[in-house]
């Protein structure tokens, strides 16, 4: 509409930054002078620590036991160990500190006051706590390897196991073999030049290193956003598989309230609306084949392996994390910025800048975003699990896409006659992953390294092929079919 403001039907204007109450007194103890303002309320330093610890426990502990069982007095008995996903950033530094104080060193000051010494909270919860760091520096030439620094930082905490990974492990069959004690394959490739994303086998003769496979994959992606969200998704999957490998029932991530709000908005902007729930908290069942949810429920047995992903700092803002780190004297390594101009065109980065800016003028924005997202649920049936990101696929998305944005004038036109019609990856992907692999921009991603070239057939991450062989996917039968056909016709073929 011409007013340029057609959708105004609002009565809810955003509250602007408010001045906190005139008094400088801490709202909790009402005696000390305040040291920090958290969303309009003033706290003193002494009251700040219990507040953050309380928020941390409140977001984590109700989800420790396999079945949430009402009264919070019951002992915490997780099914397995704990894995901490560590990035070096502020949030994960605070997370590591809190996990260590509350569950490893059993720091008295973090214990709930009620219940005395006999309180079940005073026992060690997880038998083993591991910390996993995924180094991405090999993607970008000249980027610093932070692994030694991270190793040193983790080593300052007794009783933590350190697991350093590299992002290229996602394309490393030997990493897979180590983590799963089953042979890994990266022999399945996808044609990224066609929207159908046809699958094909990657000839074993083209033996490239895991790093080469990774870099070719990234270089062949259509946009900067695709590259950046693929890296994040690979890290997530590496962490999940590592959790499985370490017998962890829980994976904790250091997303603060602020970064959770960023990832929610960024996810929505990339078509991840169906997975808003998972973005906040999810449980991954690795043994469930990617098939419709109705069939899946039946197979849910007792001894089934699963990893629960929890973000215990989801109620703690960026500013509170910074105060925690500062007052506790924590060393924050910080995350290395990728030396890549593509970040300027990355939806994740754009969202981060937008939300950080908004938070200054409208401080309640981030908590509102997160609160809104807890009030929505995915609509409709899931038709399976995405083979790339392991999240539920909404039913009917391919039809939706082709109806909303017509890409050919006649059905079947999209498929070029020259292209061999093989099995396609498209129907095994969620909306966002399909968009990541196919959606283009007039501004293609700037190269992260001029020496890496695009390829029309790129190998898929190491967790993708097993999902197809388990399903007796068309892919195999098709290869058989070709051979069979030759057997049938060969008597009629003339010698050349």
């Amino acid at each position: 509409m011409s007013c340029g403001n057609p959708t105004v039907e609002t009565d809810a204007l955003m509250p602007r930054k408010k001045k906190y109450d005139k008094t400088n007194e801490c709202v909790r103890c009402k005696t000390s002078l305040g040291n920090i303002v958290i969303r309009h309320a003033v706290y003193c330093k002494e009251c700040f620590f219990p507040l953050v610890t309380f928020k941390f426990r409140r977001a984590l502990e109700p989800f420790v036991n396999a079945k949430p069982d009402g009264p919070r007095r019951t002992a915490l008995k997780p099914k397995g160990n704990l894995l901490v996903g560590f990035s070096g950033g502020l949030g994960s530094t605070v997370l590591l500190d809190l996990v260590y104080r509350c569950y490893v060193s059993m720091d008295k000051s973090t214990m709930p006051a009620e219940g005395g010494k006999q309180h079940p909270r005073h026992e060690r919860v997880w038998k083993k706590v591991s910390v996993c760091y995924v180094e991405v520096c090999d993607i970008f030439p000249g980027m610093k390897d932070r692994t030694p620094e991270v190793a040193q930082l983790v080593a300052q905490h007794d009783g933590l196991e350190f697991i350093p990974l590299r992002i290229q492990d996602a394309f490393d069959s030997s990493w897979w073999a180590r983590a799963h004690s089953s042979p890994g394959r990266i022999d399945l490739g996808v044609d990224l030049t066609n929207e159908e994303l046809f699958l094909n086998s990657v000839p074993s003769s083209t033996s490239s290193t895991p790093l080469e496979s990774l870099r070719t994959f990234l270089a062949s992606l259509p946009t900067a956003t695709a590259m950046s969200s693929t890296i994040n998704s690979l890290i997530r999957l590496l962490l999940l598989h590592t959790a499985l490998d370490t017998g962890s029932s829980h994976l904790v991530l250091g997303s603060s309230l602020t970064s959770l709000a960023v990832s929610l908005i960024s996810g929505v902007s990339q078509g991840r609306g169906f997975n808003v729930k998972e973005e906040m908290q999810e449980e991954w069942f690795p043994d469930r084949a990617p098939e419709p949810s109705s069939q899946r429920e039946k197979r849910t047995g007792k001894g089934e392996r699963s990893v629960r992903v929890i973000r215990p700092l989801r109620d703690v803002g960026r500013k509170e994390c910074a105060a925690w780190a500062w007052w506790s004297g924590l060393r924050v390594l910080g995350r290395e910025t990728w030396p890549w101009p593509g970040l300027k065109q990355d939806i994740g980065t754009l969202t981060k800048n937008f939300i950080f800016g908004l938070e200054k003028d409208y401080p309640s924005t981030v908590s509102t975003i997160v609160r809104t997202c807890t009030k929505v649920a995915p609509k409709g049936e899931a038709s399976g699990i995405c083979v790339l990101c392991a999240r539920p696929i909404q039913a009917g998305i391919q039809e939706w896409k082709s109806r909303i944005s017509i890409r050919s004038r006649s059905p079947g036109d999209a498929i070029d006659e020259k292209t061999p019609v093989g099995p396609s990856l498209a129907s095994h992907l969620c909306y966002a992953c399909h968009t990541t692999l196919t959606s283009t921009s007039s501004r293609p991603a700037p190269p992260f390294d001029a020496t890496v070239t695009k390829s029309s057939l790129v190998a898929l991450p190491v967790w993708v092929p097993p999902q197809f062989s388990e399903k007796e996917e068309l892919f195999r039968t098709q290869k058989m079919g070709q051979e069979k056909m030759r057997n049938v016709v060969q008597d009629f073929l003339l010698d050349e």
Partner: protein
Amino acid sequence: MPPRNCALCHEARAILKRPKTGQQICRDCFFWVFETEVHNTITEAGLFKPGDRVAIGASGGKDSTVLAHVMKTLNDRYQYGLELFLLSIDEGITGYRDDSLETVKRNQQQYDMPLKILSYDELYGWTMDAIVSQVGKRNNCTFCGVFRRQALDRGASALHVDHIVTGHNADDIAETVLMNIMRGDIARLGRCTMICTQGEDTIKRSKPFKYAYEKEIVMYAYFKKLDYFSTECIYSPDAYRGHARAFLKDLEAARPSAIIDIIHSGEAFEVKEEIRATQKQQQTCKRCGYMSSNDLCKACTLLEGLERGIANAAITDRARKKLDAEGPAPENLRTIPFYQPSSTPNPALPVTIEGAHN
């Protein structure tokens, strides 16, 4: 670069790059694909049935000008069997509406559609100019939005139409999805991606352009040589929405599918059952009969505030309390004519369709 063939017909030379998909296509294929997508949207949602009387909310801007053209085209091509009307709201903003109402009047002639113009002044006794002079430029769009919505319904009821179609495009909807998440407006978040909404007994409203990119609407107008007014309202929208809009433009530049992807996200979730249960039930306004979630509808509350000089009464709870504290509304308060959504003409509002047929 050598001339490229159209990615859709493979015959004609491609002359444009489609903002929505990036495909390089010819002009005819652009018209075809744009119109067919709108047709798909209409048929998939089952928006109309033959014989429906449908009003096009016409502002003279690009969206509604193109909408009028496309609705007429599709109605003829696919024999929807619709009776189409133009319905315009005059907000009373000096120098802004005057020109665009001329566009609407021209459309009325070109497409031979009856036109009804309804002004805020005639319905509420207040023009936007007068409102702004009282409330300032901060909440003016709130007044304007609430008043426009009710004015459209009333205009539609005066025209006896069952359905209003508006020119909301994909960019508008994506922006609203983001806004509603950021403001925590759960009720609207659930509603804003719906193609068609219908209150208890109000007229259906739908958005046939909900998947049409703003850039393509401009492109369509350009190639069809449709003229429209792109004057910006002098009372510009609130700053927060401005931020959201700039952000959306950045997203679109980074990856054009972002607009559709956000709408997809909005359609992929719904408000949880237990939260929906706590939302307010709709009722009708005690004063004007329009649908409302309180005793008084928003328009009546805003109007009462204006009349009593407490303009922000419906905007903040505190101001509303102040209004209540000052006692009941005076007897002689100017009010909105009572709303009777029915097939009988509204007696309070004489139907004066501007002469299209004479």
